[in-house]
């Protein structure tokens, strides 16, 4: 075992050791916010949905915005890492796991919202098809039921996709620890011995998953977009929504990933593993998505404007130039102008630059979802029934809490599991040239372990 590898595992396993007061303070802080959010939700169930700002006729607001937003963020990980695995980009190695973790957690959070926003959350299981004495199934025509299937599939898939490559590292930790810890990681390692056969199966499994997860990911956000485009609501009933949402999802996903990586890098001192090149590449990817997003937005808006359908154009006008204009133009600025300026000019495409751009994009994409949900509902066909919407403390609290929850879960994950795939890093160091997906590699890897 080379000293180099030793140092590698040492740094990457460091977080698993004991942590300082600061860490506990941080966790406690986030925990409080999450608790407040949960309190807000239970309070909402207890007193009634009226404690939110939802009203006639704007029956969806912050909560659905959050739902779409988090499902969007979830597209960072799995999709990206899957693609990178398939094209076998060497620089992916330190990135993939941080990415896949985001997916898992973002999905868990996002998946909660359809339940949170129910008038009777305690009956959410009626969305599940199960035999009952009422002799009634869910309505399979409803996009919300499709949501249920899509999200649960995606969650299962992502968890597998996240778990599989963790097995060897669990084994590593197991081998290096004692007592209770050894038992737990031993359990998680599923009896990994690093035999050739196991390596082979792992590789194959990863290949299959990588291929399988992509269509699932694409379908999920398409179906989320269907929640809107299936209803005859001005500016919702649009053919472009599927790809528009998927693009937006990956866009915000990458932004989220960049922020997460930057945080890990500085907090866990992973400078030598998460190098500028990684941010550089992701930055380029973000730029591409920004352009794509801009293209979609432009398409959607321009056609509406030219189409000039009475109801649609009114929604269009309030978003572009009316009450929602400030939000709209902020969105355009941080989603399109800023990324192009920062990421388009090499000099600015530094880590800091990427992070700034990413933060902008995350905010911008949240606004985008808000601007899809609210203005349309507020301006349906009969002007007499037009409405307004402004959030109340409850939904703001819940929204804030979900961000806290995301950070908290991420922190805890990084605490207990190597956030960078150690064995893949090793594989990376073994050959400077990118690894070719194939069956020779595991043999050699196996040997190094044996």
């Amino acid at each position: 075992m080379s000293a180099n590898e030793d140092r590698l595992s040492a740094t990457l396993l460091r977080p698993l050791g004991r942590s300082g007061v600061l860490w506990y303070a941080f966790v406690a802080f986030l925990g409080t916010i999450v608790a407040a959010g949960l309190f807000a939700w239970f309070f909402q169930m207890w007193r009634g949905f009226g404690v939110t700002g939802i009203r006639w006729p704007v029956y969806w607001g912050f909560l659905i915005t959050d739902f779409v937003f988090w499902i969007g963020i979830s597209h960072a990980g799995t999709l990206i890492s899957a693609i990178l695995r398939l094209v076998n980009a060497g620089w992916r190695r330190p990135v993939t796991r941080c990415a896949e973790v985001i997916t898992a957690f973002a999905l868990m959070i996002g998946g909660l919202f359809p339940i949170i926003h129910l008038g009777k959350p305690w009956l959410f299981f009626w969305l599940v098809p199960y035999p009952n004495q009422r002799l009634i199934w869910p309505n399979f025509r409803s996009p919300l039921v499709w949501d249920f299937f899509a999200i649960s599939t995606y969650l299962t898939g992502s968890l597998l996709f996240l778990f599989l490559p963790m097995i060897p590292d669990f084994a590593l930790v197991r081998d290096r620890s004692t007592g209770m810890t050894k038992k737990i990681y031993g359990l998680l390692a599923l009896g990994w011995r690093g035999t050739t056969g196991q390596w082979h199966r792992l590789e194959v499994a990863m290949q299959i998953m990588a291929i399988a997860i992509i269509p699932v990911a694409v379908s999920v956000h398409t179906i989320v977009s269907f929640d809107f485009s299936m209803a005859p609501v001005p500016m919702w009933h649009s053919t472009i929504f599927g790809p528009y949402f998927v693009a937006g999802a990956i866009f915000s996903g990458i932004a989220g990933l960049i922020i997460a990586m930057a945080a890990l890098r500085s907090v866990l001192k992973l400078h030598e593993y998460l190098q500028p090149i990684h941010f550089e590449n992701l930055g380029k990817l973000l730029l591409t998505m920004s352009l794509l997003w801009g293209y979609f937005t432009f398409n959607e808006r321009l056609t509406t404007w030219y189409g000039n359908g009475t109801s649609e154009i009114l929604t269009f006008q309030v978003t572009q130039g009316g009450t929602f204009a400030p939000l709209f133009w902020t969105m355009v600025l941080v989603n399109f102008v800023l990324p192009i300026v920062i990421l388009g000019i090499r000099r600015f495409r530094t880590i800091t630059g990427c992070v700034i751009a990413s933060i902008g994009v995350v905010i911008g994409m949240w606004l985008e979802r808000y601007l899809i949900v609210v203005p349309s509902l507020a301006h349906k066909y009969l002007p007499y029934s037009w409405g307004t919407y402004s959030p109340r403390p409850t939904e703001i609290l819940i929204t804030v809490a979900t961000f806290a929850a995301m950070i908290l879960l991420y922190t805890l994950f990084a605490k207990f599991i190597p956030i960078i795939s150690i064995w893949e890093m090793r594989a990376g160091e073994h050959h400077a040239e990118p690894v070719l997906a194939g069956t020779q590699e595991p043999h050699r890897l196996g040997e190094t372990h044996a």
Partner: protein
Amino acid sequence: MDRRTFIKLTAITGTSATLASCGVPEHQLIRFVPDEELVPGIAEWKPSVCPLCASGCGLNVRVMMADVDITKDGQAGVVRMGVAKKLEGQESHPISQGGLCPRGQAAIQVTYHPDRLAQPIKRTGNRGAGTFEPISWDAAIAEVVGKLDALATAGNQKALAVVTGGRRRVLLDQFASKFGAGAPVTYELFSDDLLRRANQMSFGFAQLPTFDLSNANYVIGFGADFLGTWNAPVAHTAAYGRMRRGRPGVRGAFVQVEGRMSPTGASADEWVAANPGTEGVLALGIAHVILREKLRPADGGRPGALIDGWSAGLPAYAPQQVSTVTGVSAKRIERLAREFAERSPAVAIVGGVPLAHTNGLFTALAVNALNHLAGAVGQKGGVSFTPQLSRSTSPAGGSLVQLAAASPQVLILDETNPVFSAPKAWKVRETFQAVPFIVSFASFIDETSVLADLILPDHSFLEGWIDAAPESGSAQAVISVAGPAMKPLFQTRAAGDVILQVAGKLQKPVDLGAQTYDAYVKAALAPLGDDAWTAAQKQSGWWGELPKGVAVAPTPAEAKPAAARFVPPTFDGDAAQFPFHFLPYASAAFLDGSTAHLPWLQEMPDPITSAMWSSWVELNPKTAERLGIGLGDLVEVASSAGSLRAPAFINPGLAPDLIAMPVGQGHATYTRYASGRGVNPVELLAPVTHAETGTLAWAATRVKVTRAGEPDGKLVLFSARGELRENPREGETR
């Protein structure tokens, strides 16, 4: 956490979680033996009469079995009894004709109102402080009798004053006169006495007219909101429906002349805005053209004789002059005249705002003359007068203003709230404050009854006998009568019974010909023959041909009538300082404010503004723009009499020189639903009265308007964005 938060907190916890709990578990509740057995779950329909306005609609009341919490000799428990569930207009009744107005639909909430007085109460604190304590009926009645006897023994019967707005005027009048007091004072903010006076001069009937809209082909309305709040709206609306679409191939046309588009005006085919107080001139302008072009025989009859220059063809009212006065183009006047003359049967309706100007009488007489010229009087599709059963009543008593001079010792209040609806300058509150003893029959504590020493709450109209003598709305005579639709829920008593009881208990008993109110009503129906009473009880009243000699006969024409000529209306406040005419109007939900305590009406969107739970100030868009006022902005309206602040509503259907406000909100004390809500425009009214009748000219005040601040969220609109147009891009080009 401060006290308020804590109270709020506990309270809300209550509403959300623990309110349904009755303290005692269901099976431990005491249940009393029911004294009526209805089939559970099956509705029974009983007749009744709507009490909320004078038009006296006949009702069908849906009665069903329910468990009712009651207290029986100190023991709380439940009993199964029939309770009213829904009010519906009675198909056969000539006034309601199966329909009802929104107020009539909500009338049922009077019976079940949480703040309705459940037993007699006696004032404990200072007058007006609103602190009362329960008192037994016997004690209460004894006290009233005592006060009256005191007057009698002192030979000071004149010191008894009665103020009434309502259905029991005849009874109270007979009581007062037989007791030796003056006639009751009647007060309504939107009084029609001026029109009654005009009709007496023109037609000999001092009553409101009835219009045969069903058969009319052309209708001109002069400011009367006859489909919404004026006279007999339900009867009018039913007839209006038939006028529009009731006759195959014939669709009656409808033109409305007014400065603010009322809900009625909104239904018109053509809406004409005339300058305030010039409607009469427009009417005579139309008459002028008809006479000039001999479109109809130049017969003005008795109404025409009252108009100056009628026989000469109204030279003073040529379209050109009329146009300059009214602001309506001469061409339009001529067209209207031709349509009015040619598309007969045609009828003109006047009421409301035009008669609330100082020259109201002239306007009324002018329109009456126009009707006569059009041959509408007493004709199919024209105007007529509902035959009235003559009941001996003394002429209307003096006005509230004169009440102070009489310095009454005992004051009886019945179905009236002048403290709320009379101009401040009349000092009604101060007058009442000075009266040693006030007794009221109010079911609710309002601005007037709060001043009472004794409140003897009346039954709700569903719990006792109710009668009304509709003054108009039907070609045949109508007397609405109905018995109780359900048993009384509380320890209330029918005011009629109480009055009769008091009358009987006096040292020198006053004989009103009956011991109970139903007997009294029965006696009143006696002239109609024996079957009238039985008929009245099956349906909600009696209607048909009056027997000979019992109907009110027309009064003979005055020998030398004073010729009426147009005098421009006078306004309080000079035009420079107060540039706008102020127009308070009866709101669709609250009339003069008497129904503001009913939650359904509070939450009913206003037909024009869609406002709920609010009061507001209406401005023309251009005026608002000039003053920099936007929707919901707080504006201050000031007159010589006072000033108030309310949110603004921009109303395209309002003349630029008018400021309009709905009456009804702004109650200081009127149950949990109306108290302290909005503002009361009556406070702005200057005490301008009609010379002829002494009634208030409520449209004769000028005001100024200024922007007073940002929207305060007090204007609650159902159409939340206040959108006025079906296509907001109206006129937009690209």
